[in-house]
């Protein structure tokens, strides 16, 4: 019986451990979350991990030695091969090459390439049987691109101009598409902010505003802590106009946001809000307010002129001018039965000519004013008291003749009691007579007044200081 070889047992144990470690490493490669491949110098696949096998739904034995070019469209493969050459060609040799390239994956329903981010590295071994080996790592970027796309859609659809500028004031490659519309420009990537945003407004800017623009252009590269003070000087409202007339311009509200790294402003995010419509609306509102104020003044002035035309300055009663407008409306209301009855009184101060002749017009006017004050006092808000001319007064009532007669009597009695004492203690006393009647539907104003005048005539005839009407009171 042979003596057990302890060295051999130890070697066997090492081999078992090595195999297990190797199997574990291979499992890690197989479970690598992305494509892992080893290609030879003819770009044949020597090792593919499970992700790749699953992606193409091909048996791993079928993948062995298959040309990697067969997984690409012709043009895409040319790009891939170019990158492989960058890694292996003597003059371009580098350790790692990274790039993005689409690969045609059979599962893609639309037949479009899936975007992949590739990392290629050289794998150096002494054995030259397969030539230069290349390790390929590929990460499917579809989901990331889709997310980016969705974000971009949100970013580009918002009605704001959003963009970043670098140290020299160049606009970055990503900006909201609305910005082009706002600035009335085509592609903005790489253009200078000074040219596309500030230049049209520079001419109309004050020295402080110009300093603010300069601050915007020089703030990238400075410490983030300085930004709050710098930003106070920046222009926050710009009228951007590329045309000669003002109607083509836009009002922008501008806000600035630093994008920092390690305490230094690396980029400046600028957000433009188009406030043109708001500014226009504000201007319209202001203009409308001014116009309204102007109209109010005119209206007040017109009213004052009208008032002065329809008010008798001596008595404060309406004048004949007012008679036609107001009575037409009142009689129309009576015709249409909106007002059941309309009545009137025509007053005349008795022997007023004698007052004027005896005490003069000045005192005559005082008498007129006092009598008119009585008429006004006894009139209700709905009554229309008018100085018809000289010492004659008319009062129209939306009421029946009884009410009208009662008012006429109150006036007559109060006038009878009036005492006007002159400076020389002379006392003037007057009386008043009235004719009272009610309107008959279909009757004209002239006829209506004529009938009242007839009753006044009878009052005068009957001895004055009395009211006469068609009714017995």
């Amino acid at each position, binding site marked *: 019986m042979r003596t057990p070889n302890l060295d*051999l047992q130890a070697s066997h144990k090492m081999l078992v451990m090595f195999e297990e470690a190797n199997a574990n490493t291979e499992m890690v490669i197989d479970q690598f979350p992305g494509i892992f491949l080893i290609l030879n110098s003819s770009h044949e696949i020597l090792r593919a991990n499970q992700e790749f096998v699953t992606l193409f739904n091909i048996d791993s*034995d079928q993948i*062995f030695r298959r040309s990697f070019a067969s997984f690409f469209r012709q043009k895409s493969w040319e790009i891939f091969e170019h990158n492989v050459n960058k890694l292996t060609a003597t003059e371009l040799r580098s350790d790692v090459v990274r790039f993005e390239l689409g690969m045609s994956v059979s599962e893609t329903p639309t037949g479009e390439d899936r975007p992949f981010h590739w990392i290629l590295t050289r794998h150096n071994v002494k054995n030259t049987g397969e030539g230069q080996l290349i390790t390929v790592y590929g990460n499917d970027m579809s989901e990331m691109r889709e997310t980016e796309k969705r974000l971009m859609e949100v970013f580009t659809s918002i009605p704001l101009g959003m963009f970043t500028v670098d140290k020299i004031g160049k606009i970055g490659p990503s900006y909201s598409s609305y910005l082009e519309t706002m600035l009335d420009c085509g592609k903005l990537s790489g253009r200078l902010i000074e040219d596309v945003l500030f230049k049209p407004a520079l001419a109309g800017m004050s020295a402080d505003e110009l300093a603010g623009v300069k601050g915007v252009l020089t703030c990238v590269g400075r410490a983030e802590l300085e930004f709050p003070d710098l930003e106070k000087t920046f222009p926050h409202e710009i009228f951007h106009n590329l045309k000669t007339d003002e109607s083509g311009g836009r009002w922008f509200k501008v806000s600035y946001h630093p994008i920092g790294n390690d305490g230094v402003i690396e980029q400046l995010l600028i957000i433009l809000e188009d406030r043109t419509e708001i500014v226009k609306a504000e201007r319209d509102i202001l203009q409308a307010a001014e116009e309204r104020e102007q109209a109010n003044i005119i209206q007040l002035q017109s009213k004052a002129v009208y008032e002065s035309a329809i008010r008798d300055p001596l008595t404060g009663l309406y004048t004949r001018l007012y008679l036609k407008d107001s009575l037409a409306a009142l009689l129309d209301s009576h015709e249409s039965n909106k007002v059941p009855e309309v009545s009137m009184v025509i007053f005349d101060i008795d022997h007023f000519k004698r007052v004027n002749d005896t005490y003069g017009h000045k005192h005559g006017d005082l008498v007129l004013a006092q009598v008119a004050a009585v008429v006004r006092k006894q009139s209700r808000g709905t009554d229309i008291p008018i100085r018809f001319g000289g010492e004659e007064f008319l009062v129209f009532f939306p009421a029946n003749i009884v009410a009208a007669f009662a008012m006429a009597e109150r006036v007559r009695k109060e006038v009878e009691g009036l005492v006007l004492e002159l400076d020389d203690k002379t006392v003037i006393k007057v009386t008043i007579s009235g004719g009272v009647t009610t309107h008959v539907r279909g009757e004209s104003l002239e006829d209506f007044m004529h009938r009242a005048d007839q009753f006044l005539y009878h009052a005068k005839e009957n001895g004055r200081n009395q009211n006469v009407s068609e009714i017995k009171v």
Partner: protein
Amino acid sequence: MDNNTTTNEAAEKLDVIKHSLASLIRHAAISRLEKIIDCTAIEVSDLGPDFVPGKILANHLALIQITSSLVRVTFKCHFNTDAAKKLGFRAFGSDNTKTVSEKAVLDFIKEYCNLVAGNVVMLFEGAAIDMGIGLPICTRGFYEVFSNYEEMAATSIIHVDFWRMRANGGEIFGSALIEIIDEKPLECMIGYQIAEESNSEGEIEFL
């Protein structure tokens, strides 16, 4: 006899030793395959002219070492699992090889390597040369790239042999890396006659 003639003769003798050893190992590989897959119709062929040592032959690789103070032999079996399943379907006991797991295939090939190594040891014993056997290990075929087939310094003379074995619509590849450490005692292998095996060889009869 000048020195050149002596050198040429020595080189020719070494060449014969190399080929004798390679032939012995290939014989062991084929004969054990016949046994393990229960098939005598194995088609054996050399690899084409495009083949260079170090080229990867398949997705998987199983290897075993047979060593002595005179010679070290590394026998490798290169295989793809599907092809190996087809080749050894009888060993798996089923016509439907789809149900055979990959691990079963790897174990099958490792067992095959064990058998080949055992047979090689037995054949060397016939020439009174003791050999030891390592454990078979299986890994990815890709690791073939780490093999070194370069001619080494005089202390270790390397000879390599590659061949394909087909049967039942499947195939595997065999390869042998022979490192001769001391060639003189190996001269006994020149013209070594491999004995015919009886069908019952290796089987234990319980009487």
